[in-house]
């Protein structure tokens, strides 16, 4: 098996090395990838959308449909994990309390975990504020909906590691996770549908100028913020949904007896 794999990989390496000869040099500004569409984005994004961060402008505006469907893929991945690991949406909370909590054991139980608990309690508010900064300042600095969503998801994961995944689930139940994930997608597609109702095409944010009393560039900037909020909700909920499902009741880690 190892010999066959080595032969396949060597053949692939030879093919790729031959093909590499035709690829553009490192850092070349005239390469095909850098010469047709991207100069348009760089020169026009500020005028079109009033968003200096071109990555955010391309992500949420020029390629808005792509981002909406990528967020839907994240949602579907979350649902798939939910179906595989067993949903606990309808269960009463007393059942949740009885199960063994692998993370609490790893953190050292109630006594040893004290320092971890206090430290994470001190840290969590600042992490949340930073996540909101990353979300709302995504127009002007590196950041945006996906990054903020991942940071907020990490907040809940940090809380699960310090206080046990069950206390985290009491704060952010599975029902709430699913609702948050769906509401995020609905916010995104709702902004797109509003554009359609106001006479533009789907996700053409300049049509929103009719109800925002702003010119079309500023209403595009505002709509970018709205759809980024939707992306944040979905990504945050799905990150914690995947994590809490993987360490939860149906996990083999908790059924070792």
């Amino acid at each position, binding site marked *: *098996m*190892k010999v*066959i*794999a080595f032969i*396949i*990989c060597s053949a*692939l*390496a030879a093919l*790729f*090395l031959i093909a*590499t*000869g035709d*690829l*553009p*040099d*490192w*850092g*070349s*500004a005239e*390469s095909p*990838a*850098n010469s047709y*569409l*991207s*100069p348009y*984005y*760089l*020169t026009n*994004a*500020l005028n079109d959308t009033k968003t*200096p*961060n*071109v*990555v955010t*402008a*391309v*992500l949420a505006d020029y390629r808005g449909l792509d*981002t909406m469907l*990528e967020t839907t*893929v*994240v949602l579907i*991945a*979350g649902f*798939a*994990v939910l179906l*595989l*690991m067993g949903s606990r949406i309808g269960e009463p909370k007393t059942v949740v309390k009885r199960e063994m909590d692998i993370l609490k054991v790893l953190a050292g139980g109630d006594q040893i975990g004290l320092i971890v608990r206090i430290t994470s309690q001190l840290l969590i508010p600042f992490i949340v504020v930073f996540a909101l900064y990353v979300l709302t300042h995504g127009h002007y600095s*590196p950041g945006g909906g*996906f990054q903020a*969503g*991942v940071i907020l998801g990490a907040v809940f994961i940090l809380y699960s590691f310090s206080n046990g995944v069950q206390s985290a689930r009491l704060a952010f139940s599975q029902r709430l996770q699913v609702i948050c994930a769906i509401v995020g997608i609905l916010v995104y597609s709702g902004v797109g549908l509003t554009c359609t109702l106001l006479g533009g095409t789907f996700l053409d944010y300049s049509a929103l100028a009719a109800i925002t009393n702003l010119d079309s560039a500023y209403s595009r900037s505002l709509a970018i913020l709205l759809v980024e909020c939707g992306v944040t909700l979905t*990504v945050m909920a*799905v*990150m914690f949904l*995947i*994590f809490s*499902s*993987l360490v939860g009741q149906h*996990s*083999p880690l908790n059924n070792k007896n």
Partner: protein
Amino acid sequence: MDILISKYNYCVALILFLMGCYGIIVKTNLFKKVIALSIVQASIMLFYISIAVKTNGGIPIVSKDLSTPIDPALYANPLPHVLMLTAIVVGVGTVGMGLAIIQRIYAEFGSVDGPEVISAMEQSEL
């Protein structure tokens, strides 16, 4: 030899990609297969991001000073950054789903080793 010097970014991505491919083929442990898939994914991201680089180019956040026209050569290509930004988050989702499938396989057949799982499946069918 010329390729290795002027286009070393592609070579690094290539090495990572082949490491991942080798792992996917050779390793029988399902967790290691998922790790190898992640390595392949990382190599693709590295490839895209290295395409976006321009010599003398900074991050793609344009200056708000409108007195001078914007010169695209001074900013990195934003498009590969956008594509990989979404790909990273989708990658986390797919890795999570892979781990969930492995956990279900372990709960059902008591093993995460590929051939052992297959023989356990054949026994349960008999």
